[in-house]
């Protein structure tokens, strides 16, 4: 009886352990498969052409710069909008809103988080783009700017929830101390609570930006899909790395240079998101440790 | 420092316990725990009493890296061997903790939890265990019509007595109690102490009291622990009325604590 119980326990424990290790397995697998399909691209084109300014697969031009530029400019635009909005909303929810309002607002922001990017892209394409075209008098409403607005909407919930968590975990004693010294509520928030939650808020911003960089459908539907580099590119069509993959993968002959190049772009995206998320989570980890130490 | 108890339930020989972070260890303890009596382990904080208590049911093992040296014999068998059947041990040696921990279920389910762990399914046996356990903890009259209510809705005193009843339902041989009444009001405390006195003929009870007075009230045998050492050991009355060691006397009379 004892032996059977012990055997059962060890079988279960084995399965549990296996699943626990699986995440590492999957990351490794993803990286390996991406490398396997993407590295050949490095040998099929010269590194010089990789840094070219033209992404024109039909003529065998695979300059990555316009794609990187496209992702960059759309993301920066999204950041400029979503960071102040996100932090302000988070501050409101965490510090200003009465309890009942908080219970309503939090699920509300979660609804935004759940909106599929294709739905936002759909509205962007049908409603926002024409609006931008007419209001800003542009030749087309499908611009990087349009993409930035949609991306801001998608990054917002991430920024809000992580920042709100960070603000929430600032010990009550900090606020009480400031108020006891005669500070107004706003002074407390601005000079004590926010600075104390600084690393958590920074993490929120990084995760939000990470989310924006990785967005595919919404940007594909509204940024016009023209790989180009212009100094005023915000109000002109652009092409992100993600949209490139999604748009071109369908018609690419397997094993061709184009095919490998798209995987190379994917590797780039993988590495960028890896970097952003590692930095963000290590900051979050360190902040949590600091908070634990202070509260113990 | 070994007492005169005949047929000891536990025989502790040169026991030392080290936690991985260096806290609360025991230094070379030897003693005997008599059966069917209340043995009290008392002393100031950090003395090693809880460590010893948790050695009797190997609960120290939950802290990774705990090391034992020496022997602890339960009815002659060493329970410190690495391949010991811990499940069987813990069914024989039950424990009540300082804070009442009602499991998040009904009173009935709390009472039958231990038996169900062991695979008991027969309705008759379960019901009998429920009644006997609650009777022994003087809870039967209060609980018999409330068996299906959630246990956490009970008062603190009732919860703790439920924890005792829960252990009794498993029909253990030994009951370990770690400051069981520290969070309870005097009436509930008295009820718990009365229960212990009335059941001690059937069980071996080892208790870490939360005050010297409680120790004096309950002890048939007592051991005074100070910073990991067993300072003095003897029959309850003697240790509190006429302690032999100065340090024991200082503690018992309140000169330090």
């Amino acid at each position, binding site marked *: 009886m004892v032996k059977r119980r012990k055997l059962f326990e060890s079988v279960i424990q084995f399965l*549990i352990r296996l699943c626990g290790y699986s995440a590492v397995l999957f990351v490794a697998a993803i990286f390996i498969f991406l490398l396997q*399909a993407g590295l050949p691209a490095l040998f099929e084109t010269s590194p010089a052409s990789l840094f070219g300014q033209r992404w024109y697969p039909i003529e065998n031009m695979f300059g990555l710069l316009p794609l990187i530029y496209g992702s960059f400019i759309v993301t920066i635009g999204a950041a400029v909008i979503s960071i102040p909005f996100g932090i302000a909303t988070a501050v409101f929810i965490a510090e200003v809103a009465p309890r009942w309002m908080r219970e309503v607002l939090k699920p509300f922001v979660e609804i935004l988080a759940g909106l599929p990017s294709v739905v936002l892209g759909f509205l962007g394409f049908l409603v926002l783009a024409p609006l931008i075209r007419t209001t800003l008098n542009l030749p087309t409403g499908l611009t990087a700017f349009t993409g930035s607005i949609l991306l801001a909407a998608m990054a917002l919930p991430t920024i809000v929830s992580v920042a709100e968590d960070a603000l929430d975990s600032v010990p009550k004693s900090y606020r009480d101390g400031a108020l006891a010294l005669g500070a107004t509520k706003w002074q407390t928030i601005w000079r004590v609570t926010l600075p104390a939650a600084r690393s958590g808020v920074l993490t929120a911003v990084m995760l939000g930006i990470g989310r924006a960089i990785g967005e595919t459908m919404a940007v594909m539907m509204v940024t016009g899909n023209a790989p180009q580099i212009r100094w005023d590119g915000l109000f002109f069509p652009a092409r992100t790395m993600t949209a490139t993959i999604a748009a071109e993968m369908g018609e690419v002959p397997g094993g061709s240079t184009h095919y490998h190049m798209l995987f190379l772009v994917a590797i780039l995206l993988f590495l960028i998101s890896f970097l952003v998320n590692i930095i963000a989570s290590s900051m979050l980890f360190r902040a949590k440790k600091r908070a634990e130490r202070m509260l113990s | 420092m070994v007492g005169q108890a005949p047929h000891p339930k536990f025989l502790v020989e040169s026991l030392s316990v080290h936690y991985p972070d260096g806290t609360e260890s025991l230094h070379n303890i030897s003693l005997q725990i008599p059966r069917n009596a209340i043995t009290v382990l008392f002393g100031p904080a950090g003395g090693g009493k809880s460590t010893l208590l948790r050695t009797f049911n190997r609960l120290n093992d939950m802290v990774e890296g705990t090391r034992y040296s020496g022997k602890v014999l339960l009815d002659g068998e060493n329970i410190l061997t690495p391949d010991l059947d811990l499940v069987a041990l813990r069914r024989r040696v039950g424990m009540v903790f300082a804070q009442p921990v009602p499991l998040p279920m009904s009173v009935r389910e709390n009472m039958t939890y231990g038996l169900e762990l062991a695979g008991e399914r027969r309705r008759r046996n379960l019901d009998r265990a429920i009644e006997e356990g609650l009777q022994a903890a003087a809870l039967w009259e209060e609980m018999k019509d409330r068996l299906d209510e959630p246990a956490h809705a009970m008062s603190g005193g009732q919860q703790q007595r439920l924890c005792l009843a829960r252990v009794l339902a498993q029909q253990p041989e030994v009951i370990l109690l770690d400051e069981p009444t520290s969070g309870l009001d005097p009436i509930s405390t008295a009820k718990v102490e009365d229960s212990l006195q009335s059941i001690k003929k059937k069980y071996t009870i080892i208790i870490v009291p939360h005050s010297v007075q409680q120790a004096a009230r309950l002890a048939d045998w007592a051991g005074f622990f100070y910073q990991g050492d067993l300072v003095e050991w003897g029959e309850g009355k003697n240790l509190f009325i006429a302690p032999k060691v100065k340090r024991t006397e200082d503690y018992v009379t309140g000169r330090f604590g």
Partner: protein
Amino acid sequence: MRLSRTVTQRIAFSLLTAIMSVTVLGILAIITYIFWNGLPTLSWEFLSSMPSNGMREGGIWPAIIGTLYLTIGTAVVAVPIGLLAAIYLSEYAPDSTFTRTIRIAIVNLAGIPSVVYGLFGLALFVLFLQLGSSILASCLTLAIMTLPVIISTAEEALRAVPQSFRVVSISMGGTRWQTIRRIVLPQALPGILTGVILGLERAAGETAPILFTGASFFLPHLPQSIFDETMALPYHLFVISTQVPGMPVRIQYGTALVLLIFVLVMNLSATIIRSYYRRKRQW
């Protein structure tokens, strides 16, 4: 001019309220707009019949059922693995470098762009394992994408269960697994369920992972097996709003609304479960 503290506070708070209101109104506007324009199209016929005339008429039934298949298939793969992984992290994992590596891996998986998952799914499931463009390949891809969400929320739910329960159970002779199965898991179930629903909500709405692994736009009949391709709501919406000339706007809005309702219902259930069980908690 130096503003007084109270004036500064009033300005700051008004600004915060204004921004928050814009956010809330924005979300409301999106939802209302889609409902307003899409509701007229919703009819039993629209939901249950097959499309015709190159998708420009008829219903979107195959897309709906396709999304249902994909969601269920994802759940079947992701939930067991994710739950067991969460149990490992919460109940068994030691405080070692390897455990930290696992956590880093999970954070990583969570941040990988969905289109990269699509490419991975193509390379591994469609090509290497030769599953072809199929429901199976899409479900497996979506499952790996959903894993991190399930693992994180499930682990958090498991950790929230008080340690004292575990100690009591062990002290009564319970094994680790018995303790998990009888006490920890049931108590963590609402939190786990919330996480699963939210994870599946995302999987249901994603387009990029299924783009090259199993989604198709025009299929003459419903999929017969997991090795067939399928239509799916998000992909369908994408194509009819950007790729098909002459597509009636009402069908676009109708499709968008169906997807939106699907997602909102899941969101609502998760919220309700979370708040209901928070109140019923026995600790």
